[in-house]
């Protein structure tokens, strides 16, 4: 059995014993292919009879819409923004993730507190403080960290949507242009993710291969987590 726990001071009024499902996190930087693989895993799991909830950042009913707008307008300060994200996350945790786990779903989440922490640290927030704040989060059953080198990432991003203002950290004035800024910002994020590997027990998945290769790798790992056998 899972035996869920919180990272720190947990959510009030939650009976952890009731949580039966599995919480699986895909982490990794922008453009690494997280959403593609969430989609594939969901389909595959459902084909095998599992109920799946897929969820991602800034999609909460409470704050999702406004958070998107706040990002576009970027008038909020760093601490305010970090806490706005934490609010959004708490809403999804309590209203989507926990009810789904209670109902025995496999929850696939596109990013978790780790991305929120990495982004906030890069923007000047205190790592210790962030860890305390996110103490209310549930420890997941597994975190698959899709790791990629910066060169491969640049190629991949250019082939898809191009450089995005936020994904390039343009709000931080890190470079002359989008490319320079993207490289510096993403390198920094990758370094923060790498620091978390041990602290949070990430399983590293090499994301530089083809979609098929990466998916194959992920499928085996997910299989192990949910203890699927007899199919």
């Amino acid at each position: 059995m899972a035996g869920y726990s919180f990272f720190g001071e947990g959510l009030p009024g939650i009976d952890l014993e009731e949580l039966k499902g599995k919480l699986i996190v895909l982490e990794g930087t922008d453009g690494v292919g997280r959403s593609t693989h969430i989609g594939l895993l969901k389909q595959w799991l459902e084909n095998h009879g599992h109920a799946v909830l897929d969820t991602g950042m800034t999609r909460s009913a409470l704050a999702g819409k406004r958070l998107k707008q706040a990002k576009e307008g970027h008038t909020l300060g760093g601490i305010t923004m970090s806490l706005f994200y934490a609010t959004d996350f708490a809403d999804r945790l309590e209203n989507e993730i926990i009810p789904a786990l209670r109902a025995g779903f496999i929850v696939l989440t596109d990013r978790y507190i780790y991305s929120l922490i990495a982004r906030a640290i890069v923007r000047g927030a205190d790592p210790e403080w962030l860890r305390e704040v996110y103490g209310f989060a549930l420890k997941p059953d597994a975190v698959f960290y899709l790791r990629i080198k910066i060169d491969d990432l640049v190629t991949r991003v250019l082939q898809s949507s191009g450089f995005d203002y936020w994904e390039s950290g343009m709000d931080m004035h890190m470079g002359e242009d989008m490319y320079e800024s993207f490289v510096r910002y993403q390198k920094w994020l990758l370094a923060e993710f790498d620091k978390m590997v041990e602290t949070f027990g990430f399983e590293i998945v090499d994301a530089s291969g083809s979609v098929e290769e990466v998916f194959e790798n992920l499928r085996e790992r997910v299989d192990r987590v949910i203890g699927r056998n007899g199919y």
Partner: protein
Amino acid sequence: MAGGMKMYGKHRFPGRLFIVEGIDGSGKSTQLMLLKKWLESEGYVVYFSEWNSSPLVHEVTKRGKKKKMLTPMTFSLIHATDFADRTEHHIIPPLKASAVVLADRYVYTAFARDVVRGVSPKWVRELYAFAVKPTVAFYFRTPLDIAMKRILGGRDAIKYYEAGMDLDLSDDVEESFRCFQDRIVGEYEKMVDEFGLVVIDATRSIEEQQSEVRRIVSQALEGTKKTRIRRWLDIASLAKGSRESI
């Protein structure tokens, strides 16, 4: 930008921060208003930090309350977000500019309210670690009965979260409000020593309370700069008066 979290605990800003705390009906807002008048007449640059946070955060809070979507955790976090915005935009800049900043309610309100809702006391204190430590924090201590009489007499209906209706203390709004406030008082009392809140006996006359507040504030103001901004303010009020008379 990177380079050290802004933890304002022991700030070195040239300004001063005075805040008032207490339950609804303790008379704290009246006292703060009187303090503001006095400070202005003395020639200090006074900045009143209201709860006018960014429209985005405000809207989420309002909607969450209206639709009763908030859990103790999201209630706590959205108010912390709001408070962070206030800190970053309405408290730090005036303190840097040597102003005397006044705030009606502060982090202690959140500590009391969130803990009564079941949030961990340790966690909520960590959450607000970015807040500026006030120069003086006044706590207006009021017996619940007196406070209840003051508010139930002259105000609109008590709102859902204000009455702590989400805690299922009672089906009756007034009864729930009373139970909720009673627990809030309990939390305030615990914080007096923990944070060195300056207790003002709010059963005394308004004048007596105010003169005590002014005495304490004036001690804490030593070395704070006064300005000639008063002259400008006079002109502004004259201009306002003349416009109204047209």
